[in-house]
C-alpha cells in the first residue's frame, strides 16, 4: 500500500484549438484537406483530427514553392534580416509554449511535464541560437578563408514522431539560418505540432514558400526525398529508412544528413555515486517512454555492484507514475502507436524466450490507449535481440562487466554509435572512456542532455552529420564555388 496517493493534476487542454481537418502548408497558405487520415491521441485512441496524405503532385507543389522562395525574396535577404525572422519564430514559440506543449502531449502521448519543460523550450532555444548564426556564418569556419559558404537551396526534411516539434526545430532552424528553404514532412502519427508551427510562420510573416509542411506516410517521405529539385535531405528516423535514402541519392548531387537509431550503453563503474547513477539510468531509458534514439537502453554495470544497482533501480521504478500524459505528475505516458507497442511487446517476448529475466513494478495501466510498463531485463547476453536491436520503448537490458576494457568492448559491440554514458567518480577514467567509446555523444555522470550549442549525431550505422552547434551548420551550406556546381539555378 502506498503511504500516500496523488490527486489528479490535469493540465487543461482548452489552451489549444485543434481543427477537425488539415490541409498542407504550401507557399504561405493552407491548402484544402484531401485524402485524409486520422491522427490519434495514443493515450485513449480518440481521433484528434484528420490530416491530408500528400501525393506526388502535392510534393511537386511544395518543392516548387520552396524553389521560388529560394530564388526570390528569401535568397536575396541579408543574414541579419533572416536572423530576425528566426528570432521572431523563437519568441512566438515561447509565447505560445503552453499551447504547443498541450498539443504535443495529446498527439504524441508523452507526459505534459516533458513537453512543457523540455520539448517546447528547447525547440525555442534552437531557433534562438540559430537566429544568431544567420549573420555570423563567416565566423563558423564552414569554408576556407575568403570563400563564402552558400546555402544548398531546397532542403527536404523528414522527421520522426518521438520529438515532433523539437525535431522540426533541429531541422528548420539551421536550414533557415543558412538561407535554405524547406519542405518538411512530420511523422504520420504526430503531424499536429508541425501544422501549428505553420501558423507561427504566418504570425512571424515569414515570406511564403520559405517553410512548407506536407503530411503523409512513408510514401510521401519517399516522394519528397526522391524529388529531383531537392538539393539536400535531412532525415531523422530508423536506420533501415536511412539506408534506403542513402541508396536512393547515390550518384546524384543531393547531400544528406541522417540521424538514425541507437543502442546506447550506459556504463556504471563500481566507484560511481550509485544513487545519482540510478537517477541517470532511469532518466536515460524512461525519458519519453524510452522512445529516444539515444536512450541508454543497455545498462553495463560492473559485476560487483550489479545487485545493489538492480535493487535500487527496482525500488526507484516502483515510484514511477505511469498514466494520463496530461497529468502534471505523470512520469511515463503512452506509447506513440499500436505499431510501436507491438514492436516493444514482440522484442521483450523474444528477450524472455532467449533467457532474460523480466521485471516490472506493480502498476495499473489504463484500459484504452497504448501502454507499456517500465521494464527491466536482467541476465541479458550480448547475443540477445534485446541487446542488439533498438527496442524504442521503456525497456532496460542489464548486462555486466568486470574490467574497463571489457566495458569498452561490450559498449562498442553494436552496429550503432549514437550515444553512451559513463558513471564513475574518477575524472581521468571518464575521459579515457570517452576516448574509447565509438559514439557521437558521451554523457558522463549525466544522460540525455541536449543543447542547441552542442553537436548531436552518431558514428557507424547511427547515421552521419551532426545537428546543433557550429558543426550542425555545415550540413546546410556548400563551399564549392557556384561555377563548379552549376548552382544558383
Amino acid at each position, binding site marked *: 500500500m502506498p503511504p500516500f496517493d496523488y490527486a489528479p493534476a490535469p493540465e487543461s487542454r482548452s489552451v489549444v484549438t485543434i481543427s477537425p481537418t488539415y490541409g498542407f502548408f504550401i507557399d504561405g497558405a493552407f491548402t484544402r484537406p484531401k485524402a485524409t487520415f486520422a491522427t490519434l491521441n495514443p493515450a485513449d485512441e480518440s481521433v484528434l483530427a484528420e490530416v491530408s496524405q500528400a501525393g506526388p503532385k502535392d510534393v511537386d507543389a511544395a518543392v516548387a514553392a520552396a524553389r521560388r522562395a529560394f530564388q526570390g525574396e528569401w535568397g536575396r535577404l541579408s543574414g541579419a534580416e533572416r536572423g530576425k525572422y528566426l528570432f521572431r519564430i523563437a519568441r512566438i514559440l515561447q509565447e505560445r509554449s503552453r499551447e504547443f506543449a498541450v498539443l504535443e502531449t495529446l498527439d504524441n502521448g508523452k507526459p505534459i511535464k516533458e513537453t512543457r519543460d523540455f520539448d517546447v523550450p528547447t525547440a525555442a532555444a534552437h531557433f534562438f541560437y540559430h537566429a544568431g548564426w544567420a*549573420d555570423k556564418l563567416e565566423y563558423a569556419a564552414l569554408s576556407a578563408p575568403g570563400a563564402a559558404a552558400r546555402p544548398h537551396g531546397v532542403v527536404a526534411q523528414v522527421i520522426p514522431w518521438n520529438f515532433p516539434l523539437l525535431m522540426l526545430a533541429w531541422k528548420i532552424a539551421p536550414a533557415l539560418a543558412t538561407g535554405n528553404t524547406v519542405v518538411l514532412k512530420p511523422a504520420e502519427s504526430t503531424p499536429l505540432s508541425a501544422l501549428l508551427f505553420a501558423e507561427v510562420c504566418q504570425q512571424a510573416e515569414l515570406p511564403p514558400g520559405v517553410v512548407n509542411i506536407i503530411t503523409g506516410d512513408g510514401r510521401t517521405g519517399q516522394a519528397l526525398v526522391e524529388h529531383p529539385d531537392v538539393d539536400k535531405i535531412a532525415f531523422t528516423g530508423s536506420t533501415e529508412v536511412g539506408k534506403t535514402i542513402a541508396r536512393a541519392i547515390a550518384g546524384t548531387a543531393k547531400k544528406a544528413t541522417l540521424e538514425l537509431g541507437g543502442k546506447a550503453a550506459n556504463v556504471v563503474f563500481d566507484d560511481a555515486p550509485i544513487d545519482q547513477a540510478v537517477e541517470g539510468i532511469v532518466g536515460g531509458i524512461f525519458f519519453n517512454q524510452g522512445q529516444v534514439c539515444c536512450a541508454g537502453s543497455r545498462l553495463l554495470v560492473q559485476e560487483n555492484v550489479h545487485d545493489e544497482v538492480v535493487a535500487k533501480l527496482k525500488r526507484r521504478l516502483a515510484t514511477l507514475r505511469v498514466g494520463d500524459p496530461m497529468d502534471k505528475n505523470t512520469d511515463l505516458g503512452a506509447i506513440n502507436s499500436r505499431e510501436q507497442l507491438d514492436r516493444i511487446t514482440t522484442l521483450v517476448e523474444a528477450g524472455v524466450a532467449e533467457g532474460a529475466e523480466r521485471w516490472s513494478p506493480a502498476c495499473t495501466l489504463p484500459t484504452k490507449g497504448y501502454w507499456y510498463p517500465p521494464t527491466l531485463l536482467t541476465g541479458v547476453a550480448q547475443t540477445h535481440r534485446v541487446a542488439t536491436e533498438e527496442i524504442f520503448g521503456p525497456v532496460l537490458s542489464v548486462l555486466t562487466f568486470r574490467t574497463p576494457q571489457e566495458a569498452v568492448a561490450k559498449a562498442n559491440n553494436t552496429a550503432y554509435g549514437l550515444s553512451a554514458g559513463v558513471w564513475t567518480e574518477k575524472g581521468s577514467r571518464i575521459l579515457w572512456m570517452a576516448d574509447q567509446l565509438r559514439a557521437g555523444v558521451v554523457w558522463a555522470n549525466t544522460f540525455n542532455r541536449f543543447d542547441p550549442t552542442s553537436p548531436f549525431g552518431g558514428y557507424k550505422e547511427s547515421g552521419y552529420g551532426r545537428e546543433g552547434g557550429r558543426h550542425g551548420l555545415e550540413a546546410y551550406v556548400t563551399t564549392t564555388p557556384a561555377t563548379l556546381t552549376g548552382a544558383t539555378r
Partner: protein
Amino acid sequence: MTRLDVRKTYKLYIGGAFPRSESGRSYAVQSASGEFLANASMGSRKDVRDAVVAARGAFGGWAGATPYNRGQVLYRVAEVLEGRRAQFIDEVAAGEGLTARAAATVVDAAVDRVVWYAGWTDKIAQVLGSLNPVAGPYFNVSAPEPTGVVGVLAPQASSLLGLVSVVAPVIASGNTAVVVSSALRPLPAVTLGEVLATSDLPGGVVNIVTAQTAEVAPWLAAHRDVNAIDLAGVAGAEGVDWAGLEAEAAGNLKRVMRPRIEGGVPVEPDWTAAPGLERIRAFVETKTVWHPKGL
C-alpha cells in the same frame, strides 16, 4: 489652450537606480543647433566610484548566467529599444543634428547592433575557444571568460549607435560596465539606461555616468577595481590625454582598447560598419583547463 509638456529629468544610471550626481551638479545640454534641450547630471569622481562598486557587485551573477540567458536579455534590450524608437529618433536628431530620416536609420542600426551581439553570447566560446591536442594523455581545453569590470568611454559624436556598439560587446561575454557617456550628447545614454532598466538586465551590469569626460576619465582609468577600459570616447573629447589614461591604466594592468588613430590623433570610427569580433575579444580572458585521461 495648448498643453504644457511634462519634461524628463535626465539622471545617472547606477546599480539599477537613477540617482542624481552626488555632487549636486548639472550642466545644460544643447542641441546641434544650440537650443537648450535639458539639464543633465554632471557626474563626479564619487559617482564613478559608486558605479564601479555596483558593476563589481553585479559581475558574479552576470558572468555566471548562462550565455543563452544573456542572449535572451540582450535580445530583450533590442525589443525594448525598438519600442522607444520615436523617442530615440528625437534625441539623436536633436543631439547629432540629423534629419528625422537619418536619425531613424541610426536608431534602426542601433537596434540591429544589439541583436547582433545578442546572437553572439552563446557562440563566443565556440569561435574563440579550442580543444588543444597536447602531446600527452590529457584533456586540454581553452575557453574565453569575461575579464571583469570594464570602463567604457563612450563615443562623443555617435551618441546612440556608437554607445551600443561599445557597451553591447562588453556585456555580451559577461563583463559588467561603467560607461561615461558622450559629454555633449548624453541624453540618448540616459534613455538607454531606462531601456536597460526595463529589459531584465540585472541592476549594476551597465552603469551610465553623464559627465565631462576629461574630468572623470582619469579616475576611471586609475581605478584599481576596474579590469579593462575602452578608450573609444577620447576621440573628439576636449582636454583628454589618451596616452595619459593608458599610462594610468597600467597601474593594475588593465586591458586597454585603444582609440582608432588617424594622422596621429584619435578619431571616431564609422559605427555603421560591420563590427567584427574585435571588441568581444578585447574583453575576455582565455582559461585553459588540463585534466588527465587514464584508468
